[in-house]
């Protein structure tokens, strides 16, 4: 029986519990053979960073991550998919983002989680501002070309498969 997987997408200020989010996808079922999670954390940049402030576009952030998640569900045979992104002030060592992908075999879960993160970095409307440990404002984090390239490789992969 094939039932449509509905992704869980949450944008929130508060922290998340990785184990609880895995359990949310797997509890009460025995058909999932693989769960891949990715957590993105705030680094202290060798002690120079006091906090990151994440600004987001309410409404569009949920909508855009929802669109990326829907594409992942279309491309890979998944049994569950969760994406959680925090906003507001985040201290070094704290969680920023979580992706959980569940599937029968590991390949789909690995690839879907990877795809979701690559697209989320270049298309989800979030912006990081640095607050330095010395009290100065570090300014807005620059977008990395490497992130755009990481996202574009999935387009090439899609073309090869068709």
């Amino acid at each position, binding site marked *: 029986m094939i039932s449509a997987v509905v992704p869980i997408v949450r944008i929130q200020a508060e922290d998340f519990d990785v184990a609880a989010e895995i359990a949310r996808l797997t509890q009460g079922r025995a058909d999932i053979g693989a769960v891949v999670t990715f957590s*993105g954390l705030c680094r202290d940049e060798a002690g120079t960073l006091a906090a990151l402030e994440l600004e987001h576009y309410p409404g569009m952030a949920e909508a855009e991550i929802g669109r990326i998640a829907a594409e992942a569900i279309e491309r890979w045979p998944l049994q569950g998919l969760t994406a959680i992104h925090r906003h507001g002030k985040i201290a070094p060592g704290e969680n920023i983002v979580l992706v959980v992908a569940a599937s029968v075999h590991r390949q789909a879960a690995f690839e879907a989680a990877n795809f979701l993160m690559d697209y989320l970095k270049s298309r989800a409307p*979030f912006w990081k501002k640095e607050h330095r440990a010395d009290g100065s404002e570090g300014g*807005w984090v620059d977008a990395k070309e490497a992130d755009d390239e990481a996202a574009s490789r999935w387009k090439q992969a899609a073309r090869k498969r068709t």
Partner: protein
Amino acid sequence: MSTKLIYFAWVRERIGKPEEDVELPAGIETVADLLRWLKSRGEEYEHALQYPDVIRVAINQEHVEHRQKIAGAREIALFPPMTGG
């Protein structure tokens, strides 16, 4: 008909406000036209939109290219390249 413009990150800081309602003059058909017109509205806009090519735009909360027509847009957001994740 007025259009709601929303700004984020350094675009918001440079323009000096998070959002505004504007009456678009006749002849503003595409996103590129809008950016050109906004840039001429004052020093803060000039500063924010100095390099229009780097500005990302969403219409009604979906990403669009600069050649996209803006007819029927309720909400247009301008922001720098995204750095989430």
